[in-house]
């Protein structure tokens, strides 16, 4: 599936590893949070970057203790209407200070891209055959925001303001 970063389709250097499949030792790999919990010792001494994929029902506090082990957290959207991931990402950033990549996986649409960035996501997995223009366009079509957010660190001065960029 195409990976979107900074409004463009980019090469994905990560490999998503299904449960039961061997985890490549020499390249960045994403495993499920369940597998991480069951086999965590097996990752000791790993050199390549490790990412974890969490279901929408797995909230930030559950993964917080292990965050320093992950260079990437992939948050699943089973349906694009399931908005729990927005809170999870924001909590990872604001409450737990996580600075690695946060990726939206599953079903997200370009119309949510700005929300994703504003809650702390850095990349998004788009559906096959997605229209890349819609993602690029999503970055510029709304230039006003009414809340402080992660892509705009100034505190709530007046409620609405122009977004930087």
């Amino acid at each position: 599936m195409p990976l979107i970063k900074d409004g463009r389709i980019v090469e994905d250097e990560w490999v998503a590893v299904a449960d039961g499949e061997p985890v490549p030792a020499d390249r960045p790999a994403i495993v499920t949070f369940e597998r991480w919990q069951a086999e965590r010792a097996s990752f000791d001494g790993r050199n390549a970057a490790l990412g974890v994929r969490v279901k929408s029902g797995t909230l930030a506090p559950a993964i917080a203790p292990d965050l320093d082990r992950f260079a990437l957290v992939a948050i699943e959207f089973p349906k694009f209407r399931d908005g729990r991931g927005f809170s999870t990402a924001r909590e990872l950033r604001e409450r737990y200070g996580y600075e690695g990549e946060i990726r939206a996986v599953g079903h997200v649409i370009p119309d949510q891209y700005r929300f994703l960035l504003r809650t702390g996501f850095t990349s998004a997995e788009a559906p096959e055959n997605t229209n890349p223009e819609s993602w690029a366009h999503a970055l510029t079509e709304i230039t006003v925001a009414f809340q402080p957010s992660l892509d705009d660190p100034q505190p709530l001065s007046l409620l609405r303001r122009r977004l930087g960029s």
Partner: protein
Amino acid sequence: MNHIAPGRNAGVYSYDDIDRRFVAERVEQFRAQVERRLSGELTEDEFKPLRLMNGLYLQLHAYMLRVAVPYGVLTSRQLRKLAEIGRKYDKGYGHFTTRQNLQFNWIKLEDTPAILHELAEVDMHALQTSGNCVRNVTTDQFVGAARDEVVDGRVYAEILRQWTTLHPEFTFLPRKFKIAIMGSDADRAAIRVHDVGVFAKRNERGEVGFTFYVGGGLGRSPFIGKLIRDWVPEEDFVAYLEAILRVYNQYGRRDNIYKARIKILVHELGQEKFTREVEEEFARLRGPKYRLAPEIVDEIRRRFGGPAFETLTDEPESFQAAKAANPDFARWVAVNVLAHKVPGYAAATISLKPAGGIPGDATSEQMELVADLADAHSFGELRVSHVQNLVLAHVRQDALFTLWTALEANGLGTPNAGLIGDIIACPGLDYCALANARSIPLAQAISARFADPARQQAIGELGIKISGCINACGHHHVGAIGILGVDKKGEEFYQITVGGDPTLTTAIGDILGPAVTADETVDAIEAIVEVYLSNRHDGERFIDTLKRVGHGPFKERVYAAH
């Protein structure tokens, strides 16, 4: 750009360039979404939440567009635009709703971007009038006018409107989220049947703070909102709501649409545990980022301006003389006019409930007339009430007679605010795709049966509320008499409840007995009223008599013929 001079359309938040730019961008965004839908880039499943966030539903006959009237306050210019849209894109009328908005019933998807563009010309939009996001915040229709007002709720409702607009974290909630706010001790906004109901108050030092009720709601499982905090200081207003929504977004049920509202979460976690979760989240969120600084509040308040009231006295002679000379006018004043906080002024309710009429409907011509009257008599400002009427909030008492004469001549002078003819009815099966039964014809039959204004006045305060299905858009649970449409083997039947109360003493009505047909329902209402009149003590309201004598006599009479 047409600038709204402060004091002219007093009491309506005035947009600046940033606000306008936002709404314009949002219109273009929706235009692109419609194009992507029509081209097939977006599936219906993906498009639906996007169109709902712009207030666009698909109903029985066409699309329905719900235009936001933020906290129910609008200018005459905005109302004229609504009239024009009704004429140009709809069939010459609109429907005012219990959430203080306006719905058009015959809209084409392909016209919607153009309609939204026209709305933007008068600083209006349809944002977040539907969908699983925070909806239009509602408040007292007498805000800024009522004598009992402690805090001007508009300012905080506007703050909420801004803060919830395209909130990045809370636009895909488990379910819709409705907030109401009251700035006086009386409850004219059904605070405790909202997802979040807020009372704004002042402490001994005169500082503003808020009491929070959470988890109220009607629908399939009605709940009365629970008190979760008695005092949230003004500066924490946004942070506290952010905490509530965070807890809801994370823990609200998403497996079953009927259990997805926050009321179910509060119920399942229990008031105590829910409150603890919110308080913990709040403790973390509290800080500079979400602090609502006094400068923000002042700036927003400034943008409302304020009507330039004159120094007058109450009950001027000409007003008294008009009442004495004209009993119909005197009745309208007694029923539809409320005392104002400024001497010499009054707040007048324009009933959209003529006997036999469709509750809440107004033609484009009526809207234009009311806009003219608002210009002439109420600083160019008017309100939509949650009982689906219009309000001119700042009318000079010595102008009331002129106002009434104009209303009367155009079928808008019905003296029934708060009386039995002032029925709330949802669109029901005549328009709504989810309905079990029609609501409007029943409202028409009941208001026609009780058409006599003297009889209505004699009966006194008695709210009838009708919903065409269990979603309860007509608030039937909190009607003194509530009526719910049900489907019995393909026939329309109606279940009657009594004893509901939307005010501070919130109560959910009890079912009186088996559902009956539409005709029988009208007779049943008549029977209930007779039992009330023959049992009531002097000055006793219907719900008080009901409380005192119990359901027995009512039930007996209603079902006697069966």
